[in-house]
């Protein structure tokens, strides 16, 4: 049983090791901690990839670890790969990006602990473990957001903290109602007790609490106002981590709770409608507001909100009777591709700030000649986010579109909205590319930070690879979605 938790053990051991070794090192030697965390993430990634290989043979590796607290299936393993890939990018980028900062030990151990929380959240099928894991991941990121203790980062962290704690309150209250209604904290046992009885309205109430709570965490539209401020104010590698990993964790918990525990048809028709409305409003508002943003981090934050709207579409599709694996699989693939490209885009801002280049649109003028490799990977991420063919973002958006077409009816409206929004988003993504390459003026090329550039190029390569050879990734995400039900 313990060997199936090997990836988590590795991350936990390295997170603790980073703190303790930090105490023995002198200030100038602490860069070593970055390499130590990098080794931890790589080892854990190798262990998870081994699990993936097994899970491809039999989708459910272990149905009830620790008397039914966790379930290790292809779905969980898929997300663990996503979280570790993001952690890999962030740690690799942070070695360069935090070179001038103090308190490196705290930084890396918080990143690792947060990743650990996400990995447990991916496996949790029990409300208690899910809440503890989600909180481990978010509380670590509260501290990360305030890492530089400047005016801006503390303000961003305070806003993030207030909203994050409020959403935790909503979530735990919703969970307490679920427990009272069903007498159990296990998601599969809750599923049996829901959907009928005289307390139907309390079930709907619990559902609303959970949608609002996780709505804050994924920054869906009425609950989104914290995201632009936090992503803009937080240090760029932390913004990358927040947008690419923490947000995705909320989607994992949403999928587990809603698709497994609240799967009674009488409830599905209610929440699917709510999610449909949320998705429509979220993607439209996110993309429209992004049009007017002059700050790149803020623009990326609004685009993140829009992209979360695309993923929310798949929740609406679950009431349509269309193939569930296809709908959920489309969402999973978009979560994966978005994590890579959005994480990469924020790391580009981190690379730019390494040379004291700000994050306003004008600051990125001529980045194409100043930092050619960084600008090249930014172009890849932006084109992919816009959904241009032969990039990863196109594949996952197309899959979501296919799922809406398969569902038919009014769900087609969501698909059309997705296409319209993608066209709108192309404008503000292309604007950044125009500034990077066609601004005019004289600049000289600067040596790019090595590790950060490696992280960016690897991410860009992955984005192009998924875009050109999508087949295995599409079938992987459909299988992962299927393992949620079997």
């Amino acid at each position, binding site marked *: 049983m313990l060997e199936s938790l090997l990836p988590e053990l590795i991350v936990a051991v390295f997170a603790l090791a980073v703190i303790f070794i930090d105490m023995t090192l002198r200030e100038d030697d602490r860069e070593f901690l970055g390499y130590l965390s990098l080794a931890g993430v790589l080892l854990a990634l190798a262990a998870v990839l081994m699990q993936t290989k097994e899970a491809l043979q039999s989708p459910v590796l272990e149905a009830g670890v620790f008397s039914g607290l966790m379930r290790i299936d292809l779905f969980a393993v898929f997300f663990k790969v996503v979280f570790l890939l993001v952690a890999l990018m962030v740690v690799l980028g942070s070695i360069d990006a935090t070179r001038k900062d103090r308190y490196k030990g705290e930084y890396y151990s918080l990143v690792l602990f947060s990743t650990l929380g996400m990995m447990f959240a991916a496996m949790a099928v029990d409300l208690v473990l899910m809440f503890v894991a989600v909180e481990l991941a978010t*509380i670590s990121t509260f501290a990360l957001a305030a890492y530089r203790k400047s005016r801006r980062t503390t303000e961003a962290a305070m806003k993030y903290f207030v909203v994050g704690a409020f959403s935790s309150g909503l979530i735990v209250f919703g969970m307490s109602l679920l427990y009272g209604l069903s007498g159990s904290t296990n998601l599969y046992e809750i599923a049996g007790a829901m959907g009928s009885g005289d307390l139907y309205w309390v079930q709907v109430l619990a559902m609303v609490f959970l949608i609002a709570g996780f709505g804050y965490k994924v920054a869906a539209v009425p609950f989104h106002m914290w995201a632009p401020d936090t992503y803009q104010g937080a240090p760029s590698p932390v913004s990358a981590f927040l947008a690419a990993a923490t947000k995705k964790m909320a989607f994992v918990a949403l999928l587990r709770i809603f698709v497994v525990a609240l799967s009674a048809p009488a409830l599905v028709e209610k929440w699917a409608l709510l999610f449909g409305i949320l998705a429509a409003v979220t993607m439209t508002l996110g993309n429209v507001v992004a049009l007017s943003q002059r700050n790149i981090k803020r623009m990326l934050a609004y685009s993140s909100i829009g992209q979360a709207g695309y993923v929310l579409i798949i929740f609406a599709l679950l009431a349509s009777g269309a193939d569930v694996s296809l709908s959920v699989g489309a969402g999973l693939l978009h979560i994966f591709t978005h994590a890579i490209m959005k994480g990469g885009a924020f790391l580009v801002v981190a690379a730019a700030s390494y040379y004291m280049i700000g994050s306003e649109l004008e600051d990125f003028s001529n980045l194409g000649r100043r930092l050619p490799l960084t600008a090249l990977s930014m172009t890849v991420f932006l084109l992919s986010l816009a959904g241009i063919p032969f990039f990863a973002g196109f594949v996952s958006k197309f899959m979501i579109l296919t799922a809406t077409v398969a569902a038919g009816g009014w769900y087609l409206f969501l698909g059309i909205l997705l296409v319209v929004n993608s066209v709108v988003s192309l404008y503000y993504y292309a604007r950044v590319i125009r500034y990077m390459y066609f601004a005019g003026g004289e600049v000289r090329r600067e040596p790019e930070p090595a590790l950060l550039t490696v992280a960016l190029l690897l991410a860009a390569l992955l984005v192009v690879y998924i875009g050109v050879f999508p087949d295995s990734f599409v079938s992987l995400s459909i299988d992962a979605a299927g393992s949620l039900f079997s």
Partner: protein
Amino acid sequence: MSVTVFHYVFLGMLLFSIGAYGLLSSRNAVRMLMSIELMLNAANINLVAFSSYLGNLHGQAFAAFTIAIAAAEAGVGLAILLALYRNFRTVNLREIKELRW
């Protein structure tokens, strides 16, 4: 009239509403922290009441974890609050607007 589980849940909901109102209506960071504590404890009352009503201990175990997490959250929250106060010399979020809302 005896006290039933509904009374406890009503108390929990009342407490949660007070916390939510306090959080949304005030801009003083200390008061917001206190409101957050109220909301988390409202859930605890629910959990413990349900646990005793249903006759199993899941709820009490959950409440113990929630208390621990509330403490961790308050710790990190107060640390951020202190850093904020050092930078701005105020804890009123209305006066803190480096970033555009």
